């Protein structure tokens, strides 16, 4: 069915880009539109009360984080518990930007974050070009150089930010206040994602050279470090508005269903397009066999880092969206125990299955955050951390490949191109391939071939 579909789209070379889309793509877009409209209507018509609406938005946020983690763990094979730390970075960074705009009427957060992310990006790009010329640079040396540059960049961003804050605020002030708020919000979310990505790039340089288990422990350490820093964000980091362990309040609640769903659909499309490309195959080859990947000319270290950065970018964006759901952030949300949540979702949905991750994320939100909380007695929250591991254990025993295994929805499925049969009759035995290989090689369907070993 699918193979036939591709052949059709291939042969009909229509110029317009949109018309070239495969039917499965149309199906996906239509389904997404229906889901969006249905949920939006349910929200507008108050079929869903605010509790369930929040749950659904959280499900979508969880789907974005988990897709990021699935890239890192499911597709690239690096067991990471750091996803929650990057999620926290994204949440607090975005919250600080919108809080300053909303509460203090200052664009300083936006400007400084923009300068920091932009300048650090330029610095990373520049240094990586320079380092590429030197043979075999030690990971720690590279890390130190990147880090020192980043610190310098941070100071530059802060001082330059003070100069630029007023003009930027004036420009944004031209817009109607509601629209300006939305613009600041979207920029904040994207920049928060970029910040998380840059931090993960720095962190990943030395840590990704570790073997898989050690990498997991190091990333767990990262999540704990972030949590401790957030506990002391008002004293150690100097962000008074984050209020440390008391929790940050007064963040504008801007993450509507439309925003969170839009980001989710975009994420799914980007992840899908990436995975079904040469880059995606390189990412997966690292999971399959690192040494074989190297022997095939794939820069394993680079693709590990690339995937880690991309996964963290998604975590940061999801964090930014999460911060604006409840308007309240508390370091306990980013506790390392919670860092197992996306891991549970990814394992439940199936490692390396995008569809599974999407289903599991919403199931996670509806069941564990929604149904269980609603129908089980007060104080059950504490028991969730007993239920989760138990569920995971049962899952591992019964369905080690996840709920959906490697199943993918048609749009997300890798379509196999039709087989090319060079000048061979349909059913006749293949005696001679045009290359004379046929005479040399046994037929692929030869049953006797399998008896070796």
């Amino acid at each position: 069915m699918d193979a036939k579909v591709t052949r059709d789209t291939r042969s009909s070379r229509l110029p317009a880009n949109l018309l070239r889309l495969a039917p499965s793509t149309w199906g996906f877009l239509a389904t997404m539109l229906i889901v969006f409209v249905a949920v939006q209507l349910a929200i507008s018509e108050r079929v869903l009360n605010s509790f369930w609406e929040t749950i659904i938005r959280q499900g979508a946020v969880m789907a974005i984080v988990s897709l990021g983690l699935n890239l890192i763990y499911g597709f690239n094979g690096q067991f990471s518990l750091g996803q929650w730390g990057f999620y926290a970075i994204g949440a607090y960074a975005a919250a600080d930007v919108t809080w300053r705009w909303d509460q203090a009427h200052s664009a300083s957060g936006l400007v400084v974050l923009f300068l920091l992310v932009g300048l650090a990006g330029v610095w990373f790009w520049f240094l990586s070009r320079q380092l590429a010329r030197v043979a075999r640079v030690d990971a720690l040396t590279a890390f130190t150089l990147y880090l020192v540059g980043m610190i310098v960049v941070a100071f530059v961003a802060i001082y330059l930010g003070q100069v630029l804050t007023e003009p930027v605020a004036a420009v944004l002030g031209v817009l109607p206040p509601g629209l300006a708020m939305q613009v600041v919000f979207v920029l904040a979310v994207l920049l928060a994602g970029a910040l998380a990505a840059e931090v993960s790039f720095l962190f990943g340089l030395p840590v990704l050279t570790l073997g898989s288990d050690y990498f997991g422990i190091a990333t767990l350490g990262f999540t704990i470090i972030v949590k401790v820093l957030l506990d002391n964000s008002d004293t150690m980091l100097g962000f008074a508005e984050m209020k440390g362990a008391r929790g940050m309040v007064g963040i504008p609640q801007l993450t509507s269903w439309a925003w969170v769903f839009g980001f989710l659909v975009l994420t799914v499309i980007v992840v899908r397009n990436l995975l079904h490309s040469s880059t995606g195959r390189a990412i997966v080859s690292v999971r399959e066999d690192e040494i074989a990947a190297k022997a095939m000319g794939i820069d394993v270290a680079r693709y590990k880092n690339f995937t880690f950065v991309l996964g963290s970018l998604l975590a940061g964006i999801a964090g930014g969206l999460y911060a604006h759901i409840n308007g309240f952030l508390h370091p306990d949300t980013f506790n390392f125990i919670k860092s197992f949540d996306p891991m549970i979702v990814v394992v439940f949905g199936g490692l390396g299955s995008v569809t599974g991750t999407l289903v599991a994320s919403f199931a996670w939100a509806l069941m564990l955050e929604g149904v269980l909380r609603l129908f089980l007695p007060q104080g059950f929250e504490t028991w969730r951390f007993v239920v989760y591991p138990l569920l995971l254990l049962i899952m591992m025993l019964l369905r080690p490949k996840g709920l959906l295994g490697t199943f993918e929805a048609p749009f997300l499925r890798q379509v196999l191109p039709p087989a090319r049969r060079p000048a061979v009759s349909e059913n006749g035995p293949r005696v001679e391939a045009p290359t004379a290989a046929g005479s040399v090689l046994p037929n692929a369907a030869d049953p006797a071939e399998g008896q070796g070993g």
Partner: protein
Amino acid sequence: MSGLAPNVAISGQPGGNGGQPLLQVSGLTKVFGGLRAVSNFEVTIRKGELVGLIGPNGAGKTTVFNMITGIYAPTAGEVWFNGTNLADLLPHQITQLGIARTFQNIRLFPNLTVLDNVRIAYHPHAGYGVMDAVLRSAHFERRERELTERAQDFLAVFNLQDRQGEIARNLPYGEQRRLEIARALAAEPKLLLLDEPAAGMNPREVATLMDLIHFIRERFDLTIFLIEHQMRVVMGICEWITVMDFGEIIARGTPAEIQSDPKVIEAYLGRGASELSQRLRQKRSHVT
């Protein structure tokens, strides 16, 4: 190429096509802790040759391959390939220069399709970037289609075209070997390193494999360096053979020379066998 075994006449090979050395290894040594896995290994392989490396288990053959391909950094010694010193290059860079290899215990990408196994080898030549892929640009579509068709044609050469959608780990053993060789060749190497390609094969499969090696060598204009455990395979197809034992080269020469070398027989069968064969030979020469 100085001061080695008596039969060093490798430079003056018959039928060599011009004789540009493609791979030059000298003084290659690897020490793991207190173990000298390989010491002072030397070999020169010219364009178009098929050279064998044999030796008993643990002689250090695979370690030599791992050093040539950059998986291990040599303790001492140099590897030159096509005029480039491989010392500071990473494994993927060495592959991109034109050295591809297979592994002793097959290392396919087990959970990927046969087609993807081959397509991964084309990655360095994919010719489009991440943004092209994400935005599905026309350039991406065209390159991806070309690349896929090339991979499919390639599978057809190896008679694997009907298996393109199969998960690699589900293939029968012989086909896994064949796919691994196909994948290595898809990386467009000038030099192919085969690490015990006949391991675990029955005689019928070994015969097929030998045909396959002959075939790819001619079709892809390859130079092949081959590790083998089964004497029969190397003797049948290699032009030059180097023999290792305990990390050192103990003999080198043509298959005929190697077969009668007492050191080789000793390494493979023990001192007694070596003496026995020598006595037998002497007796035979007395008779004739």
